[in-house]
């Protein structure tokens, strides 16, 4: 069964500093991988996705993520964090083998941005 682990429950960074949020997955083959962001009181918004090909994927809002098969990781990065990036971040792995589009979500990482 597929699973996702986000080791960091809560991360605090200063505005302007770089950011890396960790995500490890368990899946039998090359997975579909996603990062979502949830601002307070909002629904989840897709930041970026990896299906195949180039292992470094670019997303919206200046985010990028790198797929590393050897480490079963898909870490999210941003070179310079803005106060508006404070939110909950979810990593997810998609199931290629069903017609249901089922994704399994990690437990989320809360990002706090210090002024």
């Amino acid at each position: 069964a597929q699973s996702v682990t986000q080791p960091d429950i809560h991360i605090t960074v200063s505005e302007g500093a770089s950011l890396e949020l960790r995500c490890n997955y368990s899946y039998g083959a090359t997975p579909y991988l996603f990062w979502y962001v949830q601002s307070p009181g909002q629904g989840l918004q897709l930041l970026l996705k990896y299906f195949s090909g180039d292992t470094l994927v670019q997303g919206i809002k200046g985010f990028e993520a790198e797929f590393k098969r050897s480490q079963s990781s898909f870490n999210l990065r941003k070179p310079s964090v803005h106060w508006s990036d404070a939110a909950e971040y979810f990593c997810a792995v998609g199931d290629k083998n069903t017609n249901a589009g089922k994704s399994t979500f990690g437990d989320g990482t809360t990002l706090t941005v210090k002024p």
Partner: protein
Amino acid sequence: DTAVSQTPKYLVTQMGNDKSIKCEQNLGHDTMYWYKQDSKKFLKIMFSYNNKELIINETVPNRFSPKSPDKAHLNLHINSLELGDSAVYFCASSPTGLGGAQYFGPGTRLLVL
């Protein structure tokens, strides 16, 4: 233009009542979902429909019954509401059936008193 919309946004009700949440997507997607997000922000899939057909039915009490009248709508009816049903319920849709990226609605905040 709202891509995935849910009504109502807030729902406060008494234990034992029956309530419904509606979801509509105008993205032309084939697959729709219901998720429950608890107070710790854990997100758990409840149901998935593909072209009006139930595909995923996770371990959810049968007090919860989804209905998809067409592929643009997926409603959730909850019977005999319990305190533990208090949560945020998200509807989502996906453009492909194979682990496709999902587009979420704004959520319905349900509080059972």
